[in-house]
């Protein structure tokens, strides 16, 4: 069951009511992140940070490793300096950390947000990327009526059922 809203607050109210009535599980659409919706939905903490941490750590390790191993592999003295000089190799540690860390963050986001997604048929409306809010309520057939009524009550511009 899909409801399209044009106002933010009505969307929020609809969500809250649907939640306390425990009608199915909801997917909320909005053209831009609004914390009102976030409050209403009340989701768990995003797990992206784990990816970031792991990526960054492996990055910094690889950065130092390649520099040190590479200099020791064929040891040539330049300017009377030590073969592997830690201080300048911080540059490699840092840069590679940022590179790998950032890329794994993006990967984490994609992974958790479930994109790339190949189809968007079910429960999406182009209006969501424009000005409208949407609630897609996946629920058992017997709850459909209730869900629809809630959505309508809160002033959905359009309510339609989707399979």
């Amino acid at each position, binding site marked *: 069951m899909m409801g399209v809203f*044009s*106002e*933010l*607050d009505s969307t929020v109210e609809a969500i809250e009511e649907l939640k306390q009535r425990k009608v199915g599980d909801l*997917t*909320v*659409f*909005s*053209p*831009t*992140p*609004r914390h009102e*919706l*976030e409050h209403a*939905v009340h*989701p768990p903490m*995003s*797990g*992206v*940070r784990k990816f*970031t941490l792991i990526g960054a750590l492996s990055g910094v390790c690889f*950065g130092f490793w*390649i*520099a040190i191993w*590479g*200099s020791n*592999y*064929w040891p040539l003295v*330049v*300017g009377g*300096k030590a073969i592997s*000089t830690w201080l*300048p190799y911080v*540059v*490699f540690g*840092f*840069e590679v950390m*940022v*590179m790998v*860390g*950032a*890329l794994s*963050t*993006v990967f*984490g*986001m994609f992974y*958790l*947000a*479930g*994109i*790339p*997604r190949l189809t*968007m048929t079910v429960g*999406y409306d*182009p*209006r*969501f*990327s*424009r*000005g409208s809010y949407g609630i897609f309520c996946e629920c058992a057939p017997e709850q459909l009526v209730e869900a629809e009524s809630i959505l309508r009550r809160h002033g959905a511009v359009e309510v339609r059922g989707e399979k």
Partner: protein
Amino acid sequence: MATLAHPDDLRRPNIASADIQLPAVTSYEQVDNEILAILKPTKAWFASLMLAIACLGLGAFSWIYQIHQGLGVAGYNPPVMWGVYIITFVFWVGIGHAGTLISAILYLFRAGFRTTIYRAAEAMTVFAVMTAGLFPIIHIGRPWKFFWLIPYPNWRLIWPNFKSPLVWDVFAITTYLTISTTFLFVGLIPDIAVLRDRETNPIRRKILGFLSFGWRNTEREWRHFARAYLFLAAFSTPLVLSVHSVVSFDFAMGIVPGWHTTIFPPYFVAGAIFSGFAMVWTIIIPMRRWFGLRHYVTLNHLDASAKMVLFTSLVVGLAYMIEFFIAWYGGVKYEQDYFWNRVFGQWWWAAWIMLTCNMILPLSLFSQKLRRNPTWLWILSIFINIGMWFERFVIVVPSLSHDVEPWQWSSYMPTWVDYGLLIGSFGWFFMWFLLFVKQLPVMALAEIKEIIPPKMKHTHSHGGH
């Protein structure tokens, strides 16, 4: 042009940058309509694209000729072994700093005025770094061997010298290019989704759908998106600072008088932000006029960024002064001779162009009138760009031409090949940027929507939060 100022601009002249609002933008639909309207190609656009490509052609020809003949066709005059190419490299890397700074650092600082300019700035960053990245290759004597600077397993069993600042550069620039590109693209995903949903042509729709990774604006997507965006910003912030520090090491690690100084990293970073903002102005101010975006990039936005420019200009100026002080205070004869020669000797003209454009003219920004005068800001931005190019010139050329060995002192005069490649680099940069403005939204739709008041049923809850 001040006379043409949009009525909305005249409201609330003095304002903390965090509260900058877009009073003239009222609804989400308006945002879509107005920003996406920009994407229609115009004759003027085609003309400027052709111009850019022509410049690029000149650069390409110069490079082909140079590769074939050898670097002798450029104006190098030993001991001035680095010239226009390295100068231009540093110049573009510097330009490339504003974007990430605006989108990342200002994001972390919640500076409101970034919202409408950061997309353009970020694109500018990516293209500037792409431009900069070419110059080390153009500059080396055997460009077909540039990949030897990259550590990769090879049949020679040898690796690059990780102690060389140039190898640090390779890592810094590559990382910066990758990350700023990623940053730009991640920010674009929701907006591409908007394009996709507004697109009628099925093929374009498919392509956009592919590029948007099937973004659906669900609350779940937004949640992770916001998180990832935060972390990216957190990464980019030190990255911005590190990249130009590493670039400055190319000089600071040398023992050449005028190079061998510890002040370079902060000095370079400040300079980079300075020049970056100038380039943002050079691009944004005409855009807001031609694309009718005055109510998105309001005078308050420009005012706020002008304060930023003023600040960085003061930092850079301080750095110049400290260089002179240290040269005198350090008592090293080489340094003293060099700085004298820089400002009052052989290279006085370059040094004074630098000082005028980077230190003296920006002082005008103490005046609010001028801060809120787009015409002046645009003119100033051109001066700053010139000044910053000459800053690099003054760092590279006079130092080398007046090194510790008097017998080898010399001069330097670029040839048409140098100029050709310099012009070519602008052609390359603007070609990409022009293509960008007609393909993708130059302003972050989602984020603008975020700061304008949403439509409400109960009118009491008006205004942003």
